């Protein structure tokens, strides 16, 4: 039975805070469940290391994701291979599931142009730093797939609770409703848009409610319950593809919490209480899934240790690889501005290279 037709105030849950089963467990094999756990552990460990790289001056500003692994991994695992992902800027964990290497994510936050370059077989749009602009792109791409008669793809788009206040959110969902596009609009409601709490973002009782006005389903899910997220997203993906019936978009509100700062540039203790953070930490998606997997015999001490070791190695290797990439050449700025480099750009590039040869790199590089 679909999880989607319900009151937007209800919250879909499969695992309670202690990993106990309170809903229907989705149909996933043992390997897939362990992989879900591993992907969440990988995202958490990556996040911890990335924050520390930033602190050490080895990387620029970085938006942490800890606490949000359940929503990221649960939803991306529910996609089929050909589906498309339109991320905001915090979905590094989900991006790995969709085939974006950790090294590439590191390069992006280390300020390398190549960090934005997806391999041709990766159906992931570049990170969207402006807020909610990607919603329209996801709607447009989904719409195009429909116009081209391609029935086999769903288009998932991620944004935050703050993002629902932007005009682009309204326009993207409105077009999707009018044109019946095969979208899954996935709101990572992590309660805080930097310092502004969810209840100061909208007077709507839930974000899921907003779908009512666009004429499609809106569903709230416990975003720190990866199995519930998987289930709801899977239902939304199937509805988007819906062979034989009307293909329709869905708005999913995944209720969750960011444990850390909005980015490494802000200090959350200025605007929120430690008590609140502790309350949400009790819902941590990782121990929740781990308990369930241990109790059902899919994980034990030995396999958990193996996961720990393998994610640590994978992240360490990615950091080594990213840090071994040399500083990009200035010519990279001038490339890919247009299909063909115009004369005035070539001239600017050549003049700059000439000066660089004369005065040396140290004349430009600060620090």
């Amino acid at each position, binding site marked *: 039975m679909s999880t989607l037709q319900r009151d937007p105030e209800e919250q879909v849950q499969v695992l309670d805070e202690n990993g106990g089963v309170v809903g229907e467990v989705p149909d996933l094999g043992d390997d897939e469940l362990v992989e879900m756990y591993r992907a969440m552990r990988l995202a958490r460990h990556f996040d911890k290391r990335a924050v520390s790289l930033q602190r050490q001056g080895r990387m*620029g*500003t970085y938006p942490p994701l800890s606490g949000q692994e359940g929503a990221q991994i649960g939803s991306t695992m529910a996609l089929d291979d050909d589906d498309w992902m339109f991320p905001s*800027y915090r979905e590094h964990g989900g991006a790995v599931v969709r085939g974006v290497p950790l090294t590439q994510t590191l390069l*992006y*936050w*280390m*300020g*390398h*142009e190549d*960090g*934005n370059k997806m391999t041709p077989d990766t159906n992931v749009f570049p*990170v969207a*730093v*402006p*807020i909610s602009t990607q919603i329209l792109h996801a709607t447009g791409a989904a719409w195009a797939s429909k116009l081209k008669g391609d029935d086999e793809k769903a288009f998932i788009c991620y944004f935050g609770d*703050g*993002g629902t*206040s*932007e*005009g*682009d959110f309204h326009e993207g969902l409105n077009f999707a409703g009018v044109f019946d596009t095969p979208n899954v609009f996935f709101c990572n409601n992590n309660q805080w*848009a*930097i*310092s*502004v709490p969810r209840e*100061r*973002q*909208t007077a709507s009782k839930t974000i899921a409610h907003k779908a009512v006005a666009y004429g499609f389903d809106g569903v709230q899910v416990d975003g720190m319950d990866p199995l519930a997220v998987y289930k709801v997203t899977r239902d939304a993906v199937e509805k988007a593809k819906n062979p034989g019936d009307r293909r329709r978009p869905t708005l999913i509100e995944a209720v969750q919490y960011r444990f850390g700062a909005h*980015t490494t*540039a*802000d200090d959350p203790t*200025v*605007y929120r209480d430690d008590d609140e953070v502790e309350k949400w930490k009790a819902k941590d998606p990782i121990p929740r899934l781990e308990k369930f997997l241990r109790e059902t015999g899919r994980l034990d001490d030995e396999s958990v240790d193996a996961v720990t070791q393998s994610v640590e190695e994978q992240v360490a290797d990615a950091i080594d690889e990213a840090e071994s990439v040399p*500083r*990009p050449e*200035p010519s*990279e*700025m*001038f490339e890919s*501005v247009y299909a063909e480099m115009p004369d*005035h*750009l070539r001239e*600017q*590039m050549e003049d*700059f290279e000439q*000066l*660089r040869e004369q*005065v040396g790199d140290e*004349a*430009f*590089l*600060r620090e």
Partner: protein
Amino acid sequence: MSTQNLTLVQAVRDGLYTEMKQDDDVLVMGEDVGKNGGVFRATEGLYNEFGDDRVIDTPLAESGIVGTAIGMAAYGLKPVPEMQFSGFMYPAFDQIVSHAARLRNRSRGRFTCPLVVRAPYGGGIRAPEHHSESKEAFYAHEAGLKVVIPSTPYDTKGLLISAIRDPDPVIFLEPKLIYRAFRGEVPEEDYTVPLGEAAVRREGTDISVFTYGAMSRPTQEAAENLSEEGIDVEVVDLRTVSPLDEAAIVESFKKTGRAAVVHEAPRKGGLAGEITAVIQEEALLYQEAPVERITGFDVPFPLYALEDYYLPSVARIEEGIRNAVEF
């Protein structure tokens, strides 16, 4: 007059504080400006001082912030909306250019729009994508707007107070590279620095270099270096890029006969072209060399690993000045 030793961002805060203290109609609104005190701390402490009716954390919506500020301004308040970064201003662009800039004109003076849109702007702080652009030319192109870009703490407070008191909308772009780069003496009292007046930062006889914002300091550094080579550079800090202080530009140019313009915004359609045109129109017969444009390249602002190459550096400024002098 007592003074304090402030950074540029502290001078922003002090300007807001000073004007809010003496005019109850002034209010601050934007994303994270209240409890959090602004992502750069430009509004720190104002929330506690003036309360949440005058220091307002809004929903995350730039068009909403500027559009409602227009309504407030027309109704008699003096809102100072903050755009968190100038790179996120574009959702508000329609409100700024179609409405704020034109409300006086469209209503034949019945409605006016005395608001100040503040935004941290420019590159050089290793920020993520879309956080480093310089697009002052967009706003300078629009009739009805004034565009201010300060470069010292003293000017920042004085210009901000002038902007808040100005009867028309002002875009106030704050070069975040120099938010905390140095301190300067700033009077505790209120004072104004008039909009539309340039300041000569260094007098010279060989060439006039026009600049503003974060480029003011490397330009002065280049001028000092070149003085050792016997090139005597005059540095003119425009401070307001719309309206331009054409009289100051022409006066300096008539003295030197040569000019360069330094800005980090891209070259094409940038302010350097406008300044060159002023020189052509008003002082052609004094001109001894082409005007050098020392600017950002005509590319999207790169991710930060390349930003040092993008920004006009002292080396590029020196080279450009030499070109104009040796022509």
